[in-house]
C-alpha cells in the first residue's frame, strides 16, 4: 500500500484511486454547491413570505393613524415596529422619494436613492420617464461587508376612498399610489444557519470522499495490486529459472484466471524443460554407448590386425628358420653316416637331430597359432554382432556408396562363442560383396531362424548385386589361397577362414550365384536346442 502511493505512476490502483477521488471531489463540489444554493433560495422564499407579512402588518398598524392624520402616531408606530432585533429600519416615503416617517428619525425629510430598488423596482429609468417595468420587483437583498444580509421590502400604499374622502383632504382622488412602505430586515440568523449548514455539508463531503477513497484503496489493493505483485514476483522467479514456484492466487476472477494460466504455462514449461533435459541425458548415454561400441569394434579390429601381423611374422620367421634347420638336420645325418651306429658320436648327433625336430615342431605350432584366432567363449548375439559390424562398416570409406538393406528377425540368436570370430566371418562377407560390386550398390543382410533335420539353425544371408561367381569356381571357393581378386588384393584366405570358423561351430556356408546378377552367401549356424 505504501509503494502504491509513493510511486503512483507505477501503480494501477493508485491511479484508479486518484482518478475516482478527483471525480468524487468534483461531483461532491457540484452537489455541495447546488444544495447550498437551493437551501439559500428556500430560506429566502420563507424570509420573503415573512417579510411581506410584516409589511402588511405594518400597513395595518399605521392605517388608522394615517386616516386620522396623526403623523406623530404614525411615527410612533414605526418606531415601535422598528425595535425588534430583526428589523433594521422602516420608512415611509412618497412617490417623489421624500421620506416622511422612519424608525430612524434622522432620515426623515431626506430622499431615497433613485437608483435603489425603491424606484428601480417598478420604473425602467426613474430619472427620465415614468415608464413601468412589466414585472415590478418589490424586494432586494443587500450584503455589505462586515454586516449581516439585509432584506429590503417595498410595498406601495394605494389610494382608496377613505383616503381621498378623509377630513384632512390630504390626497386628491386622481392619485393611484400615495406612497411606499420600506422595511429593512436583517437576515443575520439565516446567514448563520446557512453558514452552519455549509460547514456541515463540507464536512460530510470530505468524510465521504475520504471514506470512499480508503475503501476503494483497500479493495483495489486486495483485488489488483496484491495479485499483480504476486504475479510479477512469480514471473521474476520463473524468469530466474525457478520453475517450481506457483503463484498462490485462488480467486475466480480474471486475476485468478491469469494466475492459473500462468501456473499451467509454467508447468508446461517445466515439463518441456525436464523432457529436454531427459533427452539430452538419453542422447549423452546413447552417444557414450555408441562410442563404446565403436571403440570395442575398433579394438577388435586392431586385435584382429595384430593377430594377422603376428601370423605373418610367425610365418616369415618359420620360413626363415626352416632353411638353416634343414641344413642342420642334413649335415647331422651326413656326419652320422661316418660313425658306427652305437658310437657316442652317433648318439650325440641323434640329440642334434632330435632337438632340430623339436625346433621344427615349435615352428609348426607357431604357424598353427598364427592361423587360428584365440577365442574367448561367451554368449554372443548374432544380430548384435551383425548390427555392430554394419555400424562400423558404414563409417568406412570403402562402404560410403553402399546401401544396406537390413532385415533382422526379431530374435537375438544367442550362440556360445567368440564375437570377434563371428565378426571376422561377417567382415569377410561384406568385403567380398563390396569388391564384387566395385564399391557401389545394395547389400541385403538378413537373419532368420530355420529348421534343419529338426534342429534349430540361424541363417545369415549376405546378398550383393555384384558380378557373380562363375560355376567352375564354386567348388574351389573355400579353398585356401583361392582368389579371383587381382594379385596383391586378395589373399584367398577370407572365405577359407570363414569356412573354418563356421565349421568349428557345426555350421556351413551355402552359396547361390548368378553371373552378372549377384551372389548370396548363407551362413548357417546351429542354435542351442532350448532356444527356438
Amino acid at each position, binding site marked *: 500500500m505504501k509503494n502504491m502511493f509513493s510511486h503512483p505512476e507505477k501503480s494501477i490502483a493508485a491511479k484508479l484511486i486518484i482518478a475516482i477521488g478527483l471525480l468524487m471531489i468534483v461531483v461532491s463540489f457540484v452537489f455541495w454547491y447546488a444544495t447550498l444554493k437551493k437551501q439559500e433560495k428556500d430560506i429566502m422564499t420563507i424570509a420573503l413570505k415573512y417579510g411581506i407579512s410584516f409589511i402588511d402588518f405594518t400597513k395595518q398598524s399605521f392605517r388608522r393613524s394615517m386616516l386620522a392624520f396623526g403623523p406623530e402616531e404614525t411615527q410612533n408606530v414605526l418606531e415601535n415596529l422598528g425595535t425588534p432585533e430583526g428589523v433594521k429600519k422602516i420608512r415611509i416615503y412618497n412617490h417623489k422619494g421624500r421620506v416622511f416617517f422612519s424608525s430612524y428619525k434622522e432620515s426623515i425629510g431626506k430622499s431615497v436613492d433613485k437608483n435603489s430598488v425603491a424606484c428601480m423596482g417598478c420604473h425602467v429609468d426613474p430619472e427620465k420617464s415614468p415608464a413601468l417595468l412589466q414585472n415590478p420587483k418589490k424586494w432586494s437583498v443587500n450584503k455589505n461587508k462586515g454586516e449581516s444580509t439585509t432584506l429590503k421590502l417595498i410595498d406601495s400604499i394605494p389610494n382608496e376612498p377613505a383616503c381621498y374622502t378623509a377630513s384632512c383632504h390630504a390626497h386628491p382622488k386622481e392619485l393611484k399610489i400615495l406612497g411606499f412602505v420600506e422595511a429593512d430586515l436583517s437576515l443575520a440568523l439565516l446567514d448563520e444557519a446557512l453558514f452552519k449548514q455549509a460547514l456541515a455539508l463540507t464536512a460530510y463531503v470530505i468524510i465521504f470522499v475520504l471514506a470512499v477513497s480508503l475503501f476503494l484503496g483497500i479493495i483495489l489493493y486486495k483485488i489488483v495490486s496484491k495479485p499483480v505483485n504476486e504475479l510479477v514476483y512469480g514471473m521474476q522467479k520463473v524468469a530466474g529459472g525457478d520453475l517450481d514456484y506457483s503463484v498462490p492466487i485462488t480467486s475466480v476472477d480474471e486475476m485468478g484466471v491469469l494466475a492459473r494460466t500462468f501456473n499451467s504455462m509454467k508447468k508446461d514449461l517445466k515439463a518441456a524443460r525436464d523432457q529436454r533435459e531427459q533427452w539430452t541425458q538419453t542422447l549423452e548415454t546413447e552417444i557414450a554407448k555408441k562410442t563404446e561400441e565403436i571403440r570395442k569394434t575398433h579394438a577388435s579390429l586392431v586385435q584382429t590386425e595384430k593377430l594377422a601381423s603376428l601370423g605373418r611374422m610367425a610365418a616369415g620367421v618359420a620360413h626363415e628358420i626352416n*632353411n638353416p634347420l634343414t641344413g642342420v638336420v642334413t649335415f647331422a645325418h*651326413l656326419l652320422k653316416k661316418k660313425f658306427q651306429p652305437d658310437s657316442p658320436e652317433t648318439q650325440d648327433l641323434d640329440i642334434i637331430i632330435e632337438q632340430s625336430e623339436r625346433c*621344427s615342431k615349435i615352428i609348426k605350432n607357431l604357424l598353427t597359432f598364427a592361423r587360428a584366432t584365440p577365442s574367448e567363449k561367451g554368449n554372443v548375439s548374432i544380430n548384435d554382432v551383425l548390427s555392430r559390424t554394419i555400424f562400423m562398416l558404414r563409417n568406412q570409406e570403402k562402404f560410403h556408396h553402399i546401401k544396406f538393406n537390413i532385415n533382422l528377425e526379431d530374435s537375438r540368436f544367442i550362440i556360445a562363442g567368440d564375437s570377434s570370430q563371428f565378426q571376422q566371418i561377417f567382415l569377410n562377407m561384406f568385403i567380398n560383396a563390396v569388391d564384387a560390386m566395385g564399391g557401389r550398390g545394395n547389400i541385403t543382410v538378413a537373419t532368420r531362424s530355420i529348421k534343419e533335420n529338426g534342429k534349430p539353425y540361424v541363417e545369415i544371408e549376405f546378398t550383393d548385386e555384384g558380378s557373380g561367381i562363375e560355376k567352375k569356381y564354386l567348388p574351389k571357393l573355400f*579353398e585356401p589361397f583361392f582368389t579371383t581378386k587381382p594379385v596383391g588384393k586378395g589373399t584367398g584366405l577370407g572365405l577359407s577362414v570363414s569356412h573354418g570358423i563356421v565349421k568349428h561351430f557345426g555350421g556351413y556356408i551355402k552359396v547361390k550365384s548368378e553371373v552378372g546378377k549377384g551372389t548370396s552367401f548363407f551362413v548357417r549356424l546351429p542354435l542351442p536346442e532350448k532356444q527356438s
Partner: protein
Amino acid sequence: MKKILVIDDEPIIRTSCERTLAPEGYEVKSADSGKKGIEFLEKEPFSLVLLDLKMPDMDGIEVLNKIKVTWPETKVVMITGYSTVDTAVQALRLGAYNFIEKPFTPDTLISAVKEVFEKSNQDTGDPGPAE
C-alpha cells in the same frame, strides 16, 4: 646318370640337397634363383627339379608353370616352408609330382627322389602325371 636341378635362393638348402643326393649317385646342379634355373634347363635336360615355393625374383609356382609348359617330361618336386596341405594341393594341381616340407631329413629327400624315378620307370618313361 639321373640329373637333378635344385632351385632355391637358400645356399644351405642347395648344399644340403647336393650333399645328400650326390652320394646316392645323382648328378646334382643348383641354381640360386628361378631365372637361373630356367637358364640351366635351357642348356641341358634334367630328369628332376627340386623347386622352392617361395623365392624373391620368380615365384616357385611361376617356375613350375614354365617348366610344365616348356619341359613337360621333367618332374618337379616342390620344397615348401609352409606346412599346409593346401599349398601342396595347389602345387600338385599345377603339375608338381610331389612336395617335401622344410625342414626335411636326408632320408625324406632321398625317398622322395627315389619315388619319382621308380614311378617314372614303372610308367615306362612316360613323363609326369596326367594333366
